[in-house]
């Protein structure tokens, strides 16, 4: 037991002060602050200067309507009459005195048309604003021309009243579903990141010990099984440390935002304070179990390779699995009741993400959740048993007959490694 702790703490200590860990942690926390305080940051730049568009109004009476329309829409855009010639106006645009030039005219049937000229036409939002405003003016004048009054026009554009209500008392409300979605997203993202980062960390760790041959001394003093689990727990400890830092950082960021923005804060906007505690607990449980599952997988695979360069080859299939889980989760978000998603959520490698999604989106009976957790724990145990055996064999590439057989069956050990085994 004390050797287990020695291995665990050694792994923890050597990784906690490693540069990649410090850098990713700091960057992520910085990012959390930026994202949660985005509203304040944009305010800090003092609101962008309103764009100025010169208008040559050949219709003679459209400009005031356009100005009124733009103001009503609250766009950061002023339209001013330009009295000089079109070529002068174009020059002004190129010199930067104007952001753009709008030429208003009427076509043969008397409907307003517009031509927008600017130095470049990449300012999509500005162009859309103008186009929308013109569309409104056109609608209005078209309506007037067929004799509709303002009220009739408003009635046409009035959106239909449509409300959703769930009849089951345990069903999730729309808001709850949105919160779940955010939480699932966060867990999925964090899962993906952790597996990428820590999974390769474990595999690299094992592969380094093997390639630097320190492994032989290690396994002569500690059993490979103790070593493997010491390593996995050490890495899990790091992941939890990082998670704790993220949560603390995120909390601080949100608090800061609350102080700065009050009722407009991100908490109020996203109703983060209303996420049910049970869901957070489930998220944590699924995250930790999922992490263990993938960590065991990576430790096992790390023991099979002999050089650090080969770690990347190992990552690919696992990344594909996680991306697949992500895509099923996307689909599951639209169709949480789907039988396919339900079935997939019992596939251990998908369970952490998909079961959490279902727990959040649906009102699952407890036995289903328990079954999901059971499947996960079972898979971890299975991987641990196989992993420990493979690790034992893999680290030295030896194996007595029965475990060698198990090797071949379970992991399709490459020919080369078999050869090495007999060479020992």
């Amino acid at each position, binding site marked *: 037991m*004390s*050797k287990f702790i*020695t*291995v665990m703490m*050694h792994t923890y200590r*050597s990784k906690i002060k490693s540069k990649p860990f410090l850098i990713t942690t700091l960057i992520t926390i910085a990012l959390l602050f930026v994202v949660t305080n985005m509203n304040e940051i944009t305010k800090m730049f003092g609101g962008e200067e309103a764009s100025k568009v010169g208008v040559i109004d050949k219709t003679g009476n459209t400009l005031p309507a356009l100005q009124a329309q733009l103001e009503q829409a609250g766009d950061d855009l002023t339209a001013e009459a330009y009295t000089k010639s079109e070529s002068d106006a174009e020059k002004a645009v190129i010199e930067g005195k104007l952001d753009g030039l709008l030429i208003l005219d009427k076509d043969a049937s008397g409907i307003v048309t517009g031509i927008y000229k600017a130095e470049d036409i990449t300012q999509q939002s500005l162009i859309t604003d103008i186009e929308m405003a013109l569309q409104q003016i056109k609608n209005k004048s078209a309506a007037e021309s067929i004799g509709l009054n303002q009220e009739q026009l408003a009635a046409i554009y009035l959106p239909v009243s449509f409300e959703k209500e769930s009849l089951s008392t345990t069903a999730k409300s729309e808001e709850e579903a949105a919160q779940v979605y955010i939480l699932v997203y966060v867990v999925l993202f964090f899962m993906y990141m952790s597996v990428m980062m820590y999974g390769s960390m474990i595999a690299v760790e094992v592969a*380094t*010990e093997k390639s*630097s*041959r*320190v*492994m*032989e*001394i*290690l*396994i*002569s*003093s*500690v*059993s490979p099984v*103790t070593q493997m689990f010491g390593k996995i727990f050490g890495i899990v400890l790091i992941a939890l440390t990082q998670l704790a830092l993220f949560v603390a950082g995120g909390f601080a960021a949100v608090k800061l935002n609350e102080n700065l923005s009050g009722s407009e804060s991100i908490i109020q906007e996203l109703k983060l304070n209303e996420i049910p505690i049970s869901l957070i607990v489930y998220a944590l449980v699924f995250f930790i179990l999922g992490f263990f599952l993938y960590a065991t997988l990576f430790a096992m695979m790390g023991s099979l390779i002999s050089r650090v360069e080969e770690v990347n080859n190992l990552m690919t299939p696992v990344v594909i699995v996680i991306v697949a889980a992500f895509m099923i989760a996307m689909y599951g978000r639209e169709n949480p009741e789907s039988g396919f998603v339900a079935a997939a959520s019992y596939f251990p490698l998908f369970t952490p993400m998909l079961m959490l999604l279902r727990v959040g989106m649906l009102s699952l009976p407890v036995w289903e959740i328990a079954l999901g957790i059971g499947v996960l724990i079972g898979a971890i145990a299975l991987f641990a048993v196989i992993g420990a055996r493979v690790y034992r064999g893999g680290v*030295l590439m*030896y194996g*007595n*007959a029965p475990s*060698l057989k198990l090797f071949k069956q379970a992991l399709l050990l490459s020919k080369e490694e078999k050869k090495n*085994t*007999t*060479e*020992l």
Partner: protein
Amino acid sequence: MLQIKDVRKQFGTFTAVEGLNLEVPKGEIFGLLGANGAGKTTTFRMILGLLTPTHGKITWDQKEISYQTSDLIGYLPEERGLYPKLTVKEQLVYLGQLRSMPRPLIQEQTNTWLKRFGAEEYINKKVESLSKGNQQKIQFIAAVIHRPELLILDEPFSGLDPVNVELLKNAVHELKKEGTTIVFSSHRMEHVEELCQHLCIMHRGKAVVQGNLKEIKRSFGKKNVSVKADFDLTYLKDTNGVLKHRMTADGITLQVEREEVAHSLFQAVQSKGFVRKFELEEPSLNDIFIEKVGVVHE
């Protein structure tokens, strides 16, 4: 006492070690010789408990070797390996802790050993920045820092310069004096001759010669006669009982069947003129090795 009883190790259809019986009394230095692939490393791994013998039993002090006894055993593997990114101190602390040593003791031992090897200035250097010889010293310290009862050294002197070989040899001697039982393998016959009382020559997984060094030499029978004289000695090679001969710069070395052959050789040179040297030598371990294993080795 280290006891290896009728041990066989099989990898699939390949037999790495067969019918091996060894006894190493406490406080002895035991040499294990053999060409590459003779089964030395496999034997060591079985002693360490890294491999399970297919048949037979290995015990230390009547106890089977397992992870319960691993704190009593020290191991210097043939393939050297340390954490390249850790400093010497971190390295030794970690490896020492894995042998259940308390931290203060590790620090004390680290300092003692580094001082002995004249490598104190490297204590906070990363291992990857050390020279190969210094890395080897650190590796050696890692193997002995916990004062093991049984120390296994797989090719401890390979790749070292003569100064460092001497340093390490002295350390081995001293450990022996302190009561450590040492089993080591080497390609260098002179190291084995110098350090071991008992040895075993392995060939293709089997022990071909084993026992006390002196007895092995005596029972080998064949001896060497080296002669130096002012006249041509080539004719001696045709004497009855001479098995091999080798001309040297100013004389000849002959391998003879029995001691008696040396007598007739002596008679043969006596009357011819002035003889500068006539010596009857014990066979060298190298001769025995070549004879038994049938290959020229280093």
